[in-house]
C-alpha cells in the first residue's frame, strides 16, 4: 500500500502526470478505509487534501479518466475536515454534472447544512449515504467504492469526527446552550452519552493554549455549559489595544542606521 510519504514524493515529482491516477485513486480508498475503522493504527493512510485535490484536478484535465465514485470519496473525506473550506475548494474543480448526481448531490447537501450550521438537519441527510443503494438507478449494481463510502458513514469514527467539529463550533458560540438543542445537533440520545463523548475533547482554555480543559464544563439545569475561551466570553479589560511589535521597530531602526552610515 502506498504510504503518505510516498504520495508526498509523487506529488513533488509527477503531480500532473496522468500515469499517477491509479496510485492516487488507491490512496483515496486507503484514506476512506482508515476513516472507517474505529481504532487508529500506525498503518492508517493519513488524510491528504493535497493528494485528493491533485487527483480531482487530473480528472479535470482528463475527463475521460474521471471516476465519479472516487470524486465522491474525495468530497466525503473533505467533509470530515469541516470547518476547513476543502469541500468548497473541490466544488470549484468538479463539474456540475458529477456534483449533481448521487452520491455527490447528497454530500453537497450535507456540506451546505454544515456550512449553515443546521446540525440537527444534517444527520438524516448524512445517514442516507450509509445506504449503498440510495440514489442509484433501479437494477444497477452497487460499486465497491459506494459500499466503502457507506461503511465509512455507518462506522462510528466518521460520525464522532463530525460531532467533535460541531461541538467545537458550538463551544465558540455558546457559553451555555439548551441541552436538547445540543443533543439534536450532535445526534446523541441523552446527557450521559454527551458527557461520555465530550470528556474526550479538550480545548485550550482562556488562560492559555497550554492549559487544556474539557470542552464541556458541566451540564446543569437543562443547559450545557461550555468551557470558557476567548470566543465565548466577554473580552477582559479594554478592547482598545495599541502597541508596536519589537521586530517592526528593530527592523526600522536597523535600516535607518545603515543609511546613515
Amino acid at each position, binding site marked *: 500500500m502506498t504510504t503518505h510519504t510516498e504520495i508526498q514524493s509523487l506529488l513533488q515529482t509527477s503531480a500532473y502526470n496522468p500515469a499517477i491516477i491509479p496510485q492516487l485513486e488507491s490512496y483515496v480508498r486507503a484514506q476512506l478505509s482508515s476513516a472507517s475503522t474505529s481504532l487508529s493504527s500506525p498503518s492508517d493512510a493519513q488524510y491528504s487534501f493535497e493528494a485528493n485535490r491533485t487527483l480531482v484536478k487530473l480528472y479535470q484535465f482528463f*475527463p475521460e479518466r474521471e471516476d465519479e465514485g472516487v470524486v465522491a470519496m474525495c468530497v466525503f473525506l473533505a467533509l470530515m475536515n469541516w470547518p476547513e473550506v476543502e469541500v468548497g475548494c473541490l*466544488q470549484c474543480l468538479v463539474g456540475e454534472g458529477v456534483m449533481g448526481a448521487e452520491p455527490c448531490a447528497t454530500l453537497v447537501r450535507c456540506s451546505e447544512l454544515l456550512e449553515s450550521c443546521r446540525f440537527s438537519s444534517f444527520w438524516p441527510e448524512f445517514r442516507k449515504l450509509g445506504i449503498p443503494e440510495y440514489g442509484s438507478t433501479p437494477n444497477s449494481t452497487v460499486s465497491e467504492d459506494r459500499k466503502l463510502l457507506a461503511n465509512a458513514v455507518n462506522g462510528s469514527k466518521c460520525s464522532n469526527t463530525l460531532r467533535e467539529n460541531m461541538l467545537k463550533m458550538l463551544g465558540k458560540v455558546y457559553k451555555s446552550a439548551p441541552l436538547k438543542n445540543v443533543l439534536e445537533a450532535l445526534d446523541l440520545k441523552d446527557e450521559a452519552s454527551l458527557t461520555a463523548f465530550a470528556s474526550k475533547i479538550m480545548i485550550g482554555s482562556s488562560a492559555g493554549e497550554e492549559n487544556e480543559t474539557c470542552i464541556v464544563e458541566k451540564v446543569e439545569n437543562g443547559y450545557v455549559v461550555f468551557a470558557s475561551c476567548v470566543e465565548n466570553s466577554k473580552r477582559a479589560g479594554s*478592547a482598545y489595544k495599541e502597541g508596536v*511589535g519589537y521586530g*517592526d521597530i528593530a527592523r526600522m531602526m536597523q535600516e535607518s542606521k545603515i543609511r546613515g552610515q
Partner: protein
Amino acid sequence: MADNLFPDSVKDFVFDLHDASRRSLVPSELHALYTGSFRDVTAKYFPTSAWPTSEAIASECSNDELFLALYNELTLRHLQSVKRPSVRDRIEGWHAYRKLFDLVLSEAPEDGAEKGRDQLFLIPEWCFDILHEFLYQFQGFCQFRTTTYCSAAKTADDPEKTPTSHVLDSIQVLKENRDAWAVETVLFYLRRLIRVGLQKNASVTYRYLSYFASVTLSRLECLLGDYKASISALDVIYDVDAEALAVGEEMKSPEDLVNGVFPARLSLAYHAGVSYLMLRRYKDAAGMLGGICLFMQRGFKTGQLRKIPGSDQFNKLFDRMIALLAIVTHICSTQIDDSIASVVREKHANNLSKIESGEEGYEELFVFACPKFVNPAVPNYEEALTAGSPLMPYGQDTYKLQVHHFMNEMAAHQTLRKMKSYMCLYTSIGVEKLASFNDMKVEEFEPWLACFKHKMQQLERGTEANAQDKMGTAMGIHYYVAENTVHVDEAEKTRRFETFFMKQIANNDDILRQIERLKIEV
C-alpha cells in the same frame, strides 16, 4: 528578409543582445538593450510586421541555439501583439516556448553539482515577460479551442447549417496537434523552472526565472479554479529564510524582486486577491488588493505607471480590483486606505445600495472583476461535429462553476448582514427577540448565530514578526450566547495611530533612499 536587406541597427542589436545575455552578462547593458533598443528598433522598422526570422539572423549570434530560441520568443511575442494569431500561429508559439524552456532547463546545473560559470543572464523584466506571455498564450489557446468547439457543436445540431470552412480548418489543425498547450505540460515547465531556480547552485537568472514562474503558476492555478494551490505557489516568494539576490547593484529579497517588476507585482496581487476572496480569506484579500490599488492610484497621479510597457491594461485591472474590493469590504469590515475606500464608494455606489436594499448585486461585480477562467481539458473534437453532443466540451464550464460557487457563498450574507445590524444596537438581547427582528422562528434563527462565526472564521497571513498563518475572524463584532441571551461586544480595535506613523516613517525612508540614488550632474 535576406541578410543584405537588414538595417545595420538590427544586426547590431542582435549582436549586442547576444553578447550581453551570453558573454559579458552586464545587467545595465542588457537592461538598455531589452527595454530601450528593442522598442526603438521595433518602432522604426517593424511597427506592424515581423522581425527577421531566427534563421536569418543566426550568423549575428554564432548560431547559439538558446539565444536563437530567446530571440524567436521575443519576436513572436511582438508579432502576436500586432497581429491576431491564427490557429497555426498559436501552435507555432507552443513549439517556440517548448524549445526555449527545454534549452534553458538543459543548461541548468544538476541538483547538488558544483556551481559552474554563469552562461546566461536575463534581466528580471525579460524573465517575467517570457513567462507572462507563455501563460497569456495558453489562456488564449484554451479559450480559442473552446469557442471553436462550441461553434462546431452549435451547427452540428442544426441539419440546415454546416460549420464554416474556417471552423472546420481550425478543428482539423487542433485534432492534429492535440498535445499543443497541454495543461499538464505547461504545469510541468513552470514547476520545473521553480525547482531548478531554488537549487543551491542556481545562478541569479535561474533564481529570477524561479520566482517569476511562481507568480505565473499562481496565476494559472487561479485560472483553473484551484485557489489553495494559487496561494501556496507564492510561498517561495514570501519565504523569510530565502537568500537575498542581486538585482542590478542591489541585493533584494524575492518579494522585492517581484515588486520591482510592476506587471509581475500586479499579476500576483490580482490573482492572489481573487484566490483569497474565493477561499473566504476576506482580510487577506482586502490587504492584498488595497495595497496594490493604493500604489497604482499614486502611480497614475504621478504618471510613473504610464512609462511601463503594457500600461494600457493597468486601468482595466485597477477597475476590476476596485470591484473586488467593493465585494470584500461590503462582506466584512476591514481597513483599507481612505482614498481607495472613496474610489470604491464612487464607482460602485449603485451596486452596493442594491445589495443594502436586499437585492442581488454581488454577481454583477464578480462577473466584471473575475479573471477569464479556463477549461483545461482537450475537447473531443469528433464529438463537436456530431449532433446531440454537449454544447461545451465535456459539459465543463469552469467560468460558470466559479460564478456559481461564489454566488452560493454570497447567498448567506444578506441574512448575516441584517443580523449583524441588529446585534450592533445592543450589548445584550434575547435570542427570541433577535430572531423576531430577523423575521424567523427561534429554531430557524439559532443556526445563523453559529453560521455567522463560521463564515467569518478565516486564515490570516502571517506578519513580519510571525510568519505563520493563523486563524482569525473578519467579524466586526464579538458575541456569544449564554442562557438564550446574545451578549455583544465590539471587536478588538485594530491598531490605528501607530500603524499610521510606522507607515509614514517607512514612506519617508523610501523617498530619502530614492533621493540618495539620484545622480545630479552639474
